[in-house]
């Protein structure tokens, strides 16, 4: 993969991570701006025709509550029995972050989708950095970590999240968002990390 492609990939993971945060006014404008600029996005994914109020209500209904979270954004809910957060899979994610000397600084469990997507973006960026510094061994290690993380985590639950969102909402933005994440993860696994 070209360096530029890798940078694009990092950007796309990071952009997708941003899209899963609550769309307050700042976040809404940011996503809107980025989606305009980001290469390779479908028109449907843009926010021009979407009212912020409606998006906020829909986001809350799907991902926050307060009554029943229709499509929880936490890996453990899908990966473990008992519908819980902070399961063993969450601890595994934390351990992986810890290996990179990272700790989660958000008021969210570490397997929140935004955090996992940002982590992918981080790993790719580190790989890019190493390539640019000529450190082939380390860059290859970051590449392998990306693959391992996708396989151990995102791949295992992204489809379930996709199904939940698709069945619970008519909102085009969030439908397209989960579709994009799913496509990204599975395309990468097939095309980038297949070897």
């Amino acid at each position: 993969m070209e360096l530029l492609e890798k940078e694009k990939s990092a950007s796309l993971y990071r952009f997708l991570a941003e899209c899963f945060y609550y769309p307050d006014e700042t976040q809404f404008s940011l996503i809107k701006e980025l989606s305009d600029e980001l290469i390779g996005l479908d028109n449907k994914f843009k926010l021009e025709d979407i009212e912020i109020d409606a998006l906020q209500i829909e986001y809350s209904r799907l991902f926050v509550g307060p009554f029943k979270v229709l499509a929880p954004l936490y890996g453990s809910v899908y990966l473990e029995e008992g519908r819980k957060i902070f399961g063993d899979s969450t601890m595994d994610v934390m351990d992986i972050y810890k290996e990179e000397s990272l700790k989660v600084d958000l008021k969210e469990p570490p397997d929140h989708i935004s955090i996992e997507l940002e982590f992918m973006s981080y790993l790719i960026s580190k790989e890019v950095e190493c390539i640019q510094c000529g450190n082939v061994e380390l860059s290859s290690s970051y590449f392998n970590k990306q693959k391992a993380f996708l396989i151990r985590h995102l791949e295992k639950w992204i489809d379930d999240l996709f199904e939940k969102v698709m069945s619970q909402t008519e909102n085009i933005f969030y439908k397209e968002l989960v579709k994009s994440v799913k496509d990204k993860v599975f395309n990468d696994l097939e095309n980038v990390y297949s070897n």
Partner: protein
Amino acid sequence: MENSNRRNFIKRATLGSVGVATSAMILPKLKAFSQMTKNSLPVDSEWKSTTCQGCTSWCSQQVNVINGRAVRVRGNASSKVNMGEGCVRSHISLQQVYDPDRIKVPMKRTNPKKGRNEDPQFVPITWDEALDTIADKIMELRDNQETHKYMLMRGRYTYMRDLIYDRMTKIIGSPNNISHSAICAEAEKFGPYFTEGEWAYRQYDIKNAKYVLIWGADPLSANRQVAYYSAFWGDSLDHMQVAVVDPRLSITATKASEWLPVKPGEDGALASAIAHVLLTKGLWYKPFVGDFAENSAINRFEAGKEILEEKPGDVFQEIHTHGLIKWWNLELKDKTVEWAAEKTGLSAEQITRVAENFGKAAPQAISWVGGGPVMQARGGYASMACHVLNALTGAVDNEGGALKANKEYTISFPSPNDYIDAIAKAGKKHKKIDHRGRKEWPVLSKGKSGGGVITNNAAEGIINEDPNEIKVAIAYFNNFAFSCPQSERWERALSKIPFLVHCTTNGSEFTQFSDIVLPCSHHMYEKWGYVKSYANGYRHVTLLQPSIEPFWDVKIEETEIPWLLAEKLEKRGFSNLLDYYKSIKDPETNKAPETDKEFALFSLKYATQTLWDPNQYKGGDKFSGWDEFSKVGVWNSDPYPFRKRWGKMKTKTKKFEFFSETLKASLEAHAEKHHTDVDDILETCNYQARGEKAFVPHYEEPLMKGTKEEFPLVHVDFKSRFNREGRSANCTWYHELKDLDPGDNANEDVARLNPIDAKKYNIKDGDRIKLVSPVGEIECNAKIWEGNRPGTISKCYGQGHWAYGKVASEEFGKKPRGGNNNVIIPAEYDRLSGATAFYGTTRVKVVKI
């Protein structure tokens, strides 16, 4: 990360070759992460002391935290109350704290229409926005001098409660702090207060008891000190017999010598008959009660025969009691076993056997009064009738008997009086929204007219704007729209409040009607606080301490939230609340709190200083300082001083009162306040007693809604060993293990019928049925079960949520999972104590769906 930086990064990374080629060294600033330092590494594994509030046992517990995650719990071995034991509820708490449906951030309602079928359309907001909005609403009341239209509703609590429940309400200027106490078990305290001057629950000395007679309590499942009693019950069965009075076969009944499946609401008849047996057979405990005078012509109690005394003591010389002969004459002389057998549906043989064995075990013979017979209309008198047996057997304050709480030394928060301004003073003078103290609501808590709360009647006050409308309300750790009988009234009441704030861990039925919802700490894992409880001859004060770092943006409802609100009020020119809070300083450093977090910790250290500060030591366990106390997590009192209260009780006569001069004075004071007599008060409040009978423990017929013809079965409500009060329903373990409540099924909500009734009404096991009462109907499954008295239908409380989370409800707002008993229980009361009636309160019919 700042947005501009983030934007720059992505732009560089995506827009054209120039940016990409030269942006090689530019790394994204982290948004979700920060770099780890050595200090930020969590400790691998440690046990942290805290407290379980899954029921009212309040066991001291420890949480095993591994890499920042709570993974298991155990009883705190340092507690002399729960003795290192725990129960299933403490384990269920793990599912609660890690429940994905918990409220994660403050939220506001965007749909102004309120109702069960209106989607509130909540959206996240910041704490600042939430608190600014609340502060504006409170200031509006203050500006308009209508602070009495502010209301604080409290459900479960720690003893930090006074900071929000009492002090904040008073300083804002409202009389309307409404607690949940009257839907808990206030009537249980009525009997002990008006006989021995203790408005409190009791502890029971099972280590030394020989006979335990239990009334509508299930100590191996619910009620108090479940962990302690469960752990030591087996050993105690070596030396004590147990008889359980309950219309359904409770867990305790399954391990008892006798099960007395009484007709609901007839406990008072059984209690009076047992007293009758103890007296007529000479089985009362003479060193406590006394005996017939040596020169008296009358030397025994004979059924049907009044005993005349020219002056007290002529015939019977009491020692530590008062009014035995009057009680005999007014109530007991005709309450024969045969009479009681007819009333209670029990056999005369069983009543006699139980009464005699109970009496023979005196003084180690306990009468253990639970909610069953007393949380009923007219239940105050049943509370007296059952409790008073402890005096006949001499079990009061005695080894192997019924004990009060040991002394403890926690400190009250400072008086708020200096911070209550003229506006607040005027506001506080208004009458309360629950109508306490009115002629029809004596609510004689601690003997005072209007001295207690009538939680469930506050709904009527709000709906009818009587005595005034409520404009702004804050509620915490409660769900009155689910937990109060005839709960639909609360839906109407809450819809009517223009601005309602709910502080809670989970979005519940109550939240549905709120304008702002504030995410709260889970008490066992994320909160500072303390509670007190007693058993095993000791009292402990046990700390609630944060053992894990909260992963969502939650705050402590009794300290952090009121502090943050006080800061907002101060910014609006009203600093009294913040000034008051700042007066509560850290006892170790004398530093005033400057943040919400400091306030939470300092106020706890303040309240418990006498327990941990060696310079302030007053008794019980001794610590070297706060750090040691915090690590151990629990303080234990000195051992119980048996028989110290004999002759020194806090009653009018200082004696244990069979004829309650204390109740007489209270009722007369209430009557005088309303310019009438006691008989008129009793009639107004639906009691049957007239004259002096009102002042002795006695039988009153149950007051049930619905005719036998239309509603043939009596509804029996009970509590589950899995209920963390009403807060377990979103936990999968609750449903998966529900068959460990005898008679219930896993993953179902069932109403249990005796096979005799099932045949009569053509109901089969597993049938989908409706339970219909005069006030509502619920759906559940039928279970045919022999452990139910024929003529009754029993169903556990706890399910039937239409909110509370994915597991708890079938379809949010529309279809509950199971049925909530409170939908079919009418709003009825024991008006003398204010207690809400849950048991023996309604008849139902079963309709097959």
